[in-house]
């Protein structure tokens, strides 16, 4: 089998891994070598599914001794198997990197023989790249659950980012679908990596040239929609991962039916892409907007509203806090306004130092007035001619796509081009809480 065939098999087997970011670390080239890393990350292409391609995302091998039900590479699946030699993979990475196809390598693997042996193979690829080719580009490597911590330590000193896949959002789901993995086997390496990163940052203070351990931090991912876990549960888990394990990112992947199993959704189930999208929106609110998970969902509302994004949903349910005056309120408060994001909030702060802002000025700063207008005043004045009928407000908060979906799902009787749909009080409450 040649490299061409191997790449076909091992890229195909890796494509369900979500993370393809190359962010979080700034580094210049080492002398006589090649490559640098940019903290913002660089996308090199976008695949036909719209996802960014930044790294050469492949498996070392898809021959796996485990039998996880949801995974294409499970032992019991009848699929062609291939394994890269470390040299082949290092050469391929350098050949792609030189042509500016990629930002670096994303290396994961099925479990070949046992976790320790697999990890040794991964280390060898990274060692070739870093030491022989003096490659300073980005490397993201998966920690194999169950591997020896000494091996993990060596891996972490060669990589920029490490990740351990949490796979499923609860222990019960894990028990059911991934019998070879346990909560313990996943959280142990995650905790170890976190401790090493923390230790390392204090080392660097002491010794300037201490080698860096996974300087771009660690991330994880979980599958959405393969099990009955609710958004509430997933978001709380996400929040605690950020807090307790200092993760840089938590990724969600809508479950693509790849296997026929009585334990899994049917093969013709569509991937829950909208749900995944809502979870990412909420994830952004946690990381950049100062929201807590408990503000977005609670015991009574376990799932996100499909029609309105989580921030708008929160705002409509907290109208007592609005309107806010853009010329007075703090940055944290500005971030709570629908239609104002991180960039425009910062611009508002800058611009209002030179004079008070009106609605025209806000538009120039990039504020989405269509949404924001209902929640703000400029120097005490609301936007002239503003219609604050709740149904109108609600419609403005939905994107055309969401509105179309809402009209079809929630109001089948009113599919007329000429009639504006009138929202009744019941519709409104349905829309605000979402179908359970």
């Amino acid at each position, binding site marked *: 089998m*040649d*490299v*061409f*065939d191997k*790449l*076909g098999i091992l*890229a*195909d087997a*890796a*494509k*369900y891994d979500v993370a393809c970011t190359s962010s979080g670390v700034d580094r210049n*080239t080492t002398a*006589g*070598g*090649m*490559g*640098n890393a*940019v903290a*913002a990350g*660089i*996308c*090199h*292409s*976008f*695949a*036909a*599914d*719209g*996802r960014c*391609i*930044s790294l*050469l*995302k492949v498996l070392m091998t898809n021959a796996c001794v485990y039998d996880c039900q949801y995974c294409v590479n499970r032992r019991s699946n009848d699929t062609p198997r291939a394994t890269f030699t470390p040299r*082949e993979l290092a*050469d*391929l990475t*350098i*050949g*792609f990197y*030189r*042509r*500016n*196809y990629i*930002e670096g390598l994303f290396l994961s693997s099925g479990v070949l023989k046992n976790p320790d042996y697999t990890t040794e193979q991964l280390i060898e690829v990274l060692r070739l790249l870093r030491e022989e*080719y003096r490659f300073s580009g980005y490397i993201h490597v998966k920690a194999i659950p169950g591997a020896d911590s000494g091996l993990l330590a060596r891996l972490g000193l060669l990589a920029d980012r490490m990740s351990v896949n949490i796979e499923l959002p609860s222990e019960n789901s894990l028990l059911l679908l991934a019998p070879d993995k346990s909560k313990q086997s996943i959280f142990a390496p995650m905790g170890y990596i976190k401790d090493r990163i923390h230790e390392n940052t204090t080392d660097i203070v002491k010794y300037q040239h201490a080698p860096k351990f996974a300087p771009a931090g660690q991330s994880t991912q979980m599958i959405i929609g393969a099990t009955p876990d609710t958004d509430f549960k997933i978001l709380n888990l996400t929040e605690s991962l950020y807090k307790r394990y200092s993760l840089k990112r938590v990724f969600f992947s*809508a479950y*693509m039916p790849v296997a026929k199993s009585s334990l899994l959704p049917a093969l013709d189930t*569509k*991937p829950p892409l909208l749900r995944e999208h809502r979870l990412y929106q909420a994830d952004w609110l946690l990381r950049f907007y100062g929201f807590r998970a408990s503000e977005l969902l609670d015991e009574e509302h376990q799932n996100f509203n499909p029609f309105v994004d989580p921030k708008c949903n929160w705002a409509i349910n907290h109208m007592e806090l609005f309107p806010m005056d853009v010329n007075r309120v703090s940055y944290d408060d500005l971030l709570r306004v629908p239609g104002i994001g991180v960039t425009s909030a910062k611009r508002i702060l*800058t*611009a209002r*130092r*030179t*004079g008070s*802002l009106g609605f*025209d*000025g*806000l538009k*120039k*700063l990039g504020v989405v007035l269509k949404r924001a207008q209902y929640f703000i005043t400029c120097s005490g004045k609301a936007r002239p001619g503003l219609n604050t009928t709740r149904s109108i407000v609600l419609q403005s908060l939905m994107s055309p796509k969401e509105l179309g979906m809402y009209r079809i799902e929630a109001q089948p009787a009113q599919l007329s081009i000429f009639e504006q749909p009138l929202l009744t009080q019941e519709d409104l409450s349905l829309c605000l809480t979402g179908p359970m």
Partner: protein
Amino acid sequence: MPDRSDVIYQYDGSFDGLLCCVFESYDKKEIPADVLAPGQHQAMLFAVKNIVTDEQRAGRVLASIPTKMGGLALDFVRHAFLTCLPQKEIYILLFLRLGYQHGPCVMNMLADDVVSTLFKAVTHLKRESHLLKGFVRFSVVNNALTAEIEPKNCVLPLLMDHFCDRYPEESFLIHDKTHGMALIYQPHRHAIIPIDALQLPEPDEEELAFRQLWRLFYDTIAIEGRYNPKCRMSHMPKRYWKYMTEFGQPQELIPKLGDQVKRLSFNIL
């Protein structure tokens, strides 16, 4: 501030030349209706004044910018000069006049028409140069890296540091076909030079093999069940596709080469 007069400046297209227009505007206490680069023609029937580039005058204006409105404003103006904004010259002139009037806080006046127009143009430039850091595709022939781009803005100065740092031991060339310029690098020396036409060498077998491997990877990595061409297009507008290997011409994939390509070993490095 004097009113906009009905005179139009014509300058030589250089940054220094534009600074001399600023000098002239203060010297004559007038604000031109427009500032034209060579080859541009005025749409209005105003008198055209030819502004001669004078190093000393340009130097005086250049030195005044950081002291009057801060180094950030100078960087900003230099970037603005690289954008594809129509009438960028007159906007830069008006921006500098605002800066002399208000000082460093001109950079905060984001709700002002002139400032916000220039900010948008500079954001466009920076966004395009960031995208191209990823979308540039090199071909390796005779151990030299060559690439072509057709950007809207003049991005080469912004790409220079990035690529020089990335490939310090390589020789490479990036040809900007829109502006007729090229960034040329040989170990530890770089230059941006004007260039008209350039015939790139034919790809060799190894180059073709890597292109084919990349296309295979590109096609394999997409998940069919999530096909979303609109999303792809919004992140990667079609005008960039022309020079990207993954959308290359099928005639490159000559069938008879296929077997050789597959057998090719990776002993290049």
